[in-house]
């Protein structure tokens, strides 16, 4: 299996998989994957595929983006509490940005940006 790196995580995103890891000692789930369990300190970790659905816990419509997101402005970006428990940041896609509110149920998707695959979510 691949190492627990940003490169591996992004490789999985490009394949449409939302992968984190699970601690074999204390069963804590991590996304993105970590090298050391932040709950118990164990290095005994294994890949874990998240279902990819959850609800928005925090969200904003950004009108002053960084240079890489200029073309999308305005866009919604937020933090999703996944059904498994952990949260992850993502770009909100395929709907008007104002439609994404705290509590909105969303699921994992991928937005292609040239060579890059951006971790994104769409309304269920």
């Amino acid at each position, binding site marked *: 299996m691949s190492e627990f790196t940003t490169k591996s995580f992004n490789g999985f995103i490009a394949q449409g998989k939302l992968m984190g890891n699970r601690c074999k000692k204390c069963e804590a789930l991590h996304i993105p994957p970590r090298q050391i369990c932040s709950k118990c300190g164990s290095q005994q970790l294994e890949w874990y595929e998240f279902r990819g659905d959850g609800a928005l816990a*925090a*969200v904003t419509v950004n009108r*002053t*983006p960084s240079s890489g997101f200029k073309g999308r402005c305005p866009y919604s970006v937020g933090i999703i509490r996944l059904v498994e428990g952990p949260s*992850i940041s993502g770009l909100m896609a395929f709907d008007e940005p104002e439609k994404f509110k705290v509590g909105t149920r969303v699921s994992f998707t991928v937005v292609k940006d040239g060579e890059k695959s*951006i971790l994104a979510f769409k309304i269920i």
Partner: protein
Amino acid sequence: MGLNRGVSIVGAGMTRFHNRIHMDKTGRELFVEAALEAADAVDHGFRFRDAGALFVGNFTSEVFEGQGHIAAVIADWLGINPIPAYRIEDACASSGAALNLGAMSIASGMTDIVVVGGVEKMSRLNTDQVTDALALAADSSYETSVGFTFPSIYAAMASAYFKKYNTDWEQLAAVTIKNHRNCVLNPKAQFQLDIMATAQRMGEKSGRIFKNEMEFLKSDLNPIISSPLRLFDCCPVSDGAAAIILAADDVAGRYTDTPVKIMGMGQASDTIALHSRPDFTTLRAAVKAAEDAYKMSGFTPKNIQVADVHDCFTIAEIVATEDLGFFPKGQGGKSAEEGRTALNGELPINPDGGLKAKGHPVGATGVAMAYEMFKQLRGQAGKHQVQGAEVGLVHNVGAAGASVAVQVFRRG
């Protein structure tokens, strides 16, 4: 835990914070100006050569002005070589962290006197470039990669806060109005207009008259940056430097009869990404750093008479006043609305105008807060003096709370 040897501030100085007036100066030049003012503020006189070490807080002089190795540059320009010169980087908490380390170096016995300061020269870049530079303080692999910027992370925090406590943007506006009222009284502040005067000036240009502050703040002249945060919810881009001189309590009497003593200090880290935290409406690192600082000082939140907190965005001031134990969770915004944190309120917060209106040259901010306490607790804060203040607190946050430094001070 505590310091094995007491440490006090014996002098403090800062440049004015501003986005234009320092255009033709470099960071090192701004630092020297602040340090010279700090030396002048030492009652019985001070020479830089008395210092045994230099601590410089700076976020990213590499990006902002194409200069690395900034502590050595500044030691050189202060004319104090050879000296241990350290550059400390904890994003916007860089100089708050430098202050803690400077005090620890004195407490360790390695030296009796240190110069601690911070500097950021941001105005050479345009707004888009500054947005990119500040985003470096967030998680570039997992936050900025999906479209988050520094303002939008705090905006997301605000969305969670509003939902949890069933409040809205108007509470944020109360912080803007209050901090702009204070900046008018502080000649070092970047902004010198309160919101009503700002509304008149900006309204004149487009032939509009605003009846009150809220009408202006809700108008298109206060555009949304990242919802719900509008322009006047965000600190400006600033150039500036601040410096303080720390002395061991056993030698401080050589320099002044009225030192400002560090009673307690704390520093804590948290996850770099906001999404990895269980609650987006509190900064755990602030709670921990404050807990440690209170414990060391022997004071509680009730003893604090004036505080400078890290209001890089208005929501941050509301969360800070709760994290520091001044108000119950969910009550920070209401307290601002009710005037309890105003200059004449029960606990004045950011009497100098805060980051919002005083300005926020990121690496300089933590020491600029200590400068404010040096003035306040010695009764030298001029028009924004909090009458009779003897105990004060500062709270300096790195990015979205992945680093926080807190200090509690008392008039010596």
